């Protein structure tokens, strides 16, 4: 049977014991703030660190290679120019012997450089995902905190809106907005952000509901601290773990939503491109030109996986039940 059934195992240290052990490192007698503790735990989470480094590398690769907007990148081709198809458009990238070649990810059917197209798709998907993440986190935190702290109308409104999202799937709303704003990527990102906040708002509300009954909030109220200040200074910092972890999950689900609606034809439109659009365009190319199908998929999977692992690392780091080692 598993170890936790072993009766000889010492009882886990209780809450106050670990905090003493954690906060004061016994070898150096150095003490740590809550933020430092979280950071240390996060930095020691191997999977999350690997994911973080990979994600940063993907971001650097996507934005420096073909440049962004007016800023030129180090890759000499762009995602719009066509050229002659060489060798059936097969990728020239090979790991052994290592060479990048003329078209590392191959060329599409009309000779556009596929590396540049995938990089552009990654840029667009990342841009949308992070915009959605920021907007939805902001809205979700604000609405959740107000609903949980003041209760009343805001709260019932929030709960009804969440009910609404159970019956209209997020993807359906996203597709409707995509149909409306698809040719305008920043607008699409904002609209996706506006519909993605409900889950986080519910979680923050739940957290705030229990925090507002705590002694330190009562104390702050007793000395006359205005409610907005209490929310900002006392309540929200204690809900930071929930917010940060769910912000990362929002980003990974935004990547998948954006690619999904682009795949359905309601997201980003040609000539601009996104990873979902690339897969949709080349979904029947798997037998003839497999690279056109594999590369964008691997990038979506890679980005979403990295973000999810980072979220997992943050969850562990914010969890006070975790020990230092």
């Amino acid at each position, binding site marked *: *049977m*598993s170890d*936790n*059934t072993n*009766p000889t195992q010492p009882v886990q240290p209780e809450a106050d014991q670990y905090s003493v052990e954690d906060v004061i490192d016994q070898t150096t007698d150095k003490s740590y703030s809550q933020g430092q503790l979280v950071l240390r735990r996060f930095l020691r989470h191997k999977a999350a660190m690997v994911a973080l480094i990979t994600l940063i590398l993907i971001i650097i690769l996507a934005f420096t290679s073909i440049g962004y907007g007016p800023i030129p990148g180090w890759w000499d081709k762009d995602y719009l120019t066509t050229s002659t198809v060489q060798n059936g458009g097969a990728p020239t990238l090979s790991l052994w012997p290592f060479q990048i070649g003329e078209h590392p990810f191959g060329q599409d059917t009309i000779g556009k450089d596929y590396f540049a197209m995938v990089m552009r798709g990654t840029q667009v998907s990342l841009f949308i995902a992070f915009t959605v993440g920021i907007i939805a986190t902001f809205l979700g935190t604000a609405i959740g905190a107000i609903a949980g702290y003041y209760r009343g109308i805001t709260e019932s409104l929030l709960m*009804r809106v969440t*009910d*609404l*999202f*159970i*019956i*209209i*799937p*997020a*993807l*359906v*709303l996203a*597709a*409707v*907005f995509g*149909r*409306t704003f698809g040719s305008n990527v920043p607008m699409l990102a904002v609209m996706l952000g506006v519909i993605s906040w409900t889950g986080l708002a519910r979680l923050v509300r739940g957290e705030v509901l229990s925090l507002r009954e705590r002694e330190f909030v009562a104390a702050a109220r007793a000395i006359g601290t205005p409610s907005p200040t209490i929310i900002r200074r006392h309540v929200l910092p204690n809900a930071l773990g929930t917010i940060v972890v769910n912000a990362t999950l929002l980003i*990974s689900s935004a990547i*998948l939503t954006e*690619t*999904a609606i682009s*795949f*359905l*034809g*309601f997201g980003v439109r040609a000539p601009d491109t996104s990873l*979902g659009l690339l*897969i*949709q365009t080349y*979904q029947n190319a*798997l*037998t003839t030109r497999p690279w056109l*199908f594999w590369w964008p*998929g691997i990038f*979506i*999977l890679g980005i*979403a*996986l990295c*973000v*999810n*692992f980072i979220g*997992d690392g943050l969850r562990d780091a914010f969890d006070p039940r975790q020990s230092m080692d």
Partner: protein
Amino acid sequence: MFKYIAKRIGQSALILLLGSLLLYVLVINAGDPLEDLRESNDPNRENLIRQRSANMGLDLPWYVRYLTWLRGVGGCFVGRCDLGTSRDGQAVTGLVAQAAGATLRLVIIATIAAIVIGITLGIVSAVRQYSAFDYGVTLMAFVFFSLPVFWFAVLLKHYAAIQFNDWLPNGRISLPTILITAGILGLILAAALGGSWRRRLVTFAVMFVSVTGILFYMDQVEWLRRPAVGLPVYILAVIGLGILVIVMTSGFQNPRVRNAVGATALIAIIGYAVVRPTLMTERTDPETFSTANWILFGCLFAAVLLAILAGQLLGGFSRRQATSASVTTALFASVLAFTDLMLSHWSGYLAVMPRPIPTIAAETPNFYSTYWNHMIDTATHLILPTVALTAISIAAYTRYTRASMLDVLNQDYIRTARSKGIAERKVITRHALRNSLIPIATIVAFDFAGLIGGAVITETVFGWQGMGDLFRVGLNNVDPAPVMGFFLVTATAAVLMNLLADLVYAILDPRITG
């Protein structure tokens, strides 16, 4: 309880109304419904534009259009449904009626499969926390969580359908394939069951030898082309199922549950032996298909009824547990019987359809064949979309179940149960499981909405003429009627699912009543 349900239904109706208004307004503002006509060079263009404007009511204010639509829907309560007409003048009511069956079948089967598999994996990985199995399941959950469903679906289409179909007519299972498959399955089972190294080794060896034997046998008799199950295998399977259910619920010490489950298994075996010839008869006349459907439903109903009876009569003071255990047995025994019937007709189906796993459409068009061939045809069309949808959804269930199970396992009453000497199996199945399922019930409702979104995508990949198609084409044409038809069906299903989840919640947690 009744008051509670009535209140919930009232709230849901209000939400549905609000949702329909919101979606209607958003859809009619999603673009220009005359776009294609404006760009066309047809000499008759002006006329066509006028015609479509009149047809769709484009000249009317939005609230008049919405209210007209709503009045048509309101007709459903007096038996005259009118969901409006699509851009091309087709009645949406008929389109929805055709599409709803396929989509709901897909989504409901995927939900059930995801719940069963996801919860099982989650529980095992929580019980074996920090084992190789736990890490493996966690990693797989992360991968599936991050997997774009359309990408996965296209891969499935290529590898699980096209290549399997190529292989099937005269493929052999090679020895290395057998050994590797057996090795992997053995490792998984050994990691899942755990225990000392000796026990793991024994588990691995038993699994390895049996899988090798089965695969070798299947290769020799060409089982995948001519599968034979028959009554003897069914009897063995039902006996195994009964033992599994007893072990999972009460253990063999409780004679009441044991007897109830045993009686149910016996009834299932005898009943199936009696009705099998009737069910096996080849029906070719499509007129009689619904009779066959009703016979199947009747058998299922009878099985459940008899199981309840067995549980109530033989259950004694553990009546409740005995009943639920025997109903579980009856349900799974019915599934086994159904599988047996399908497999018995498989080689006949292969003769008609040499490439059995289709990649497109919800059923073969213009397919005139026997009842069971139609059944298999529907099932094979369902396999890939269901696998795609389930795989994505399993990940979330696994993670949530694991977290909630770990939470429960760390509570005091579990320690008490262990310290008074209850076997670990019983601690988990009787004390921890039920409480760990409570939070899962709420997730089902949210997940169902996600699955409907996923169904839109999978239907696109697999070319189904389902609700997803209705939605996609309707939205593309800025045509509200089909989109709203999609909304009505999926939203009502979601509301019912939500209600069901709430009821399950109340059953699992007796503190919640009304």
